[in-house]
């Protein structure tokens, strides 16, 4: 274990800034997860694979000579239709059933996507180079790639747009009504089937945005999906469903935690520490609730 990180404040600042910029992205993915969890009561294990797929769309634009930042616009459109397609094929059959069924079914989708992406795009780690350069702070002790700042800014813009859309538009109202009480919404003339499809599509589109940003700032690989699913699940259970500031804050917290784990334990334990943190958070909440003889449900 390496505690150098606390002796050199510049490294601490670097890790914090990196973590916050990364955490904004996580929060965007987690917002999609909270949306579908709240509305349809399913847990989507394929969330991370949708992110990676969105990243590959941006990467392909980069390969064909288009600037990958345009992927932020194109990717959500394509991902929306892929999301609706997945909903029509699989998800609509698991919506009313046990949560475990949805976990297992989306696990199957996740394995399927992983392998199809592996066939289509190859097993190499790829990165879409945006050519944005870097910003140096504090006498070039802290180095921030501009692409990270760009991705955080775009995520915030998208999140704000989505919040306004959910508040003001007709579909947004229908989605919120369905989340509160699907049966009552049906009686009042909301086509819940359409609302569910749109919700899953919006979730997939959010994943597409996040994926395009990740392909610019970090790297993508067909098998990297599951950690993103686990991160978004973790953020949602810490923040709670429908608590948007909470999602943003816990996303940033997770990002900072990851950067510190990276510095202190070494990169090989980075993903492992994320999964371990999930277990610890769940166990902590379990003990906290069991004092009142309640349990997580």
């Amino acid at each position: 274990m390496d505690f150098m990180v606390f002796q050199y404040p510049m490294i601490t600042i670097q890790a914090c800034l990196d973590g916050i910029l990364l955490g904004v992205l996580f929060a965007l993915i987690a917002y999609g997860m909270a949306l579908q969890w709240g509305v349809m009561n399913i847990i989507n294990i394929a969330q991370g694979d949708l992110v990676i797929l969105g990243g590959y769309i941006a990467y392909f634009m980069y390969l064909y000579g288009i600037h990958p930042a345009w992927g932020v616009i194109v990717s959500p459109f394509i991902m929306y239709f892929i999301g609706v397609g997945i909903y029509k094929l699989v998800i609509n059959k698991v919506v009313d059933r046990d949560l475990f069924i949805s976990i297992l079914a989306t696990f199957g989708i996740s394995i399927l996507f992983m392998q199809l992406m592996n066939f289509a795009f190859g097993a190499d780690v790829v990165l879409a180079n945006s050519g944005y350069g870097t910003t140096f702070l504090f006498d070039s002790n802290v180095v921030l790639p501009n692409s990270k700042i760009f991705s955080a800014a775009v995520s915030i813009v998208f999140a704000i747009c989505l919040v306004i859309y959910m508040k003001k538009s007709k579909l947004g109202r229908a989605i919120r009504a369905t989340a509160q009480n699907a049966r009552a919404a049906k009686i009042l003339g909301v086509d819940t089937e359409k609302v569910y499809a749109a919700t899953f599509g919006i979730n997939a589109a959010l994943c597409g945005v996040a994926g395009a940003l990740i392909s610019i700032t970090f790297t993508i690989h067909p098998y990297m999906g599951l950690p993103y699913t686990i991160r978004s699940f973790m953020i949602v259970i810490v923040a709670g469903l429908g608590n948007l500031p909470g999602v943003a804050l816990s996303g940033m917290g997770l990002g900072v935690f990851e950067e510190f784990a990276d510095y202190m334990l070494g990169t090989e334990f980075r993903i492992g520490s994320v999964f371990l943190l999930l277990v610890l958070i769940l166990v902590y909440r379990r003990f906290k609730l069991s004092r009142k003889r309640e349990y997580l449900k």
Partner: protein
Amino acid sequence: MKQKDLILYTAILIFGLAAPFIFPAFKVQLSILCVLIILAATWNIQGGEMGYNSFGNILFYGLGMYLCASVQVGMFFPLAEWTESGGEKTFVHTPKQFFQGMAVGLIVAAVVPTIVAGLIGYSILGLRGHYFAICTLGLGVAAGEISGGIEIIGAGQGFTTPPFPDFGGLEARGEFFYFCSFFALVLTFITIRAIYSTRFKLILNAIRDNEDKAEAMGIETMKYKIIGWMVSAFFCGLAGGIMGGLVGYIDSTDVAFDGREMGVFMVLMAILGGKGTLWGPIIGATVFHIFKEGFWTFFLGWQYVALGVLIVVIVIYFPEGIMGWLREKYPERFGEVVDEADRKAQVELK
């Protein structure tokens, strides 16, 4: 035990003992089948009988695999140098050392995961439903990632288990591992069958059906949940130890803590055969293994695509499994009394 059952079990036992000599080409496949049945049948204790859908039994399987191999090497040679040398063998086990190491290794591989399950059981089993599922999924993946960073057990480059001693060649090796896994399977079956005929099984079912009510009836649910998990862990560790020797090479995420393959397989096999029945997981594992091997051989490269589609199809269209389907079709065979008039009325209703 009824006489019909006795004949059936004897026939299966004789077939199992003779199988490697009847199908000499399939010895390895048969051993893997035994391991798969053990995993599915012990998963069924949680998922089927207790209603706790665990993705984390792979933790005990991988733990057993690493422990068995480490003990087998560490008893006679320095472990660090063994893993450092990788594939090139600097040390050679004599036959006596190999079998001694394997025996001790299997015992450790079974006992330590049981203790681990007992220790973490109180924390983890307090979670319910999908939180338990996701938490155990996280446990399995975390174990894989962390063991992939530990130097002494080979880290990223993997751990080569001791090669089978130099006598009898591949035939003897295949027979040895087949009988290991077959006896482990017999032990598992006897234990599970004994468990399923006691009050313990009824308690597990009570927990599945309504845990709060079971607790209100004065059952210490937590105690029984932990015991159930420990039974699973014991046999998962044992199966892992055997499988490690059989494969001959342990990789942290692709062989030992292989949540993407083995961890899902055990859930899938139990669901395919029918959750909450004694024979369901056994039938499910057999059908699944035959299907998988056929697919793996003829459509190499597309196996994960097929696996993904298979999971979705089974979960959505066939959640009751083979035993559930049979039960609906022939309820008399399962000891259910069916009123013919009632049955007809139900058909008309449909």
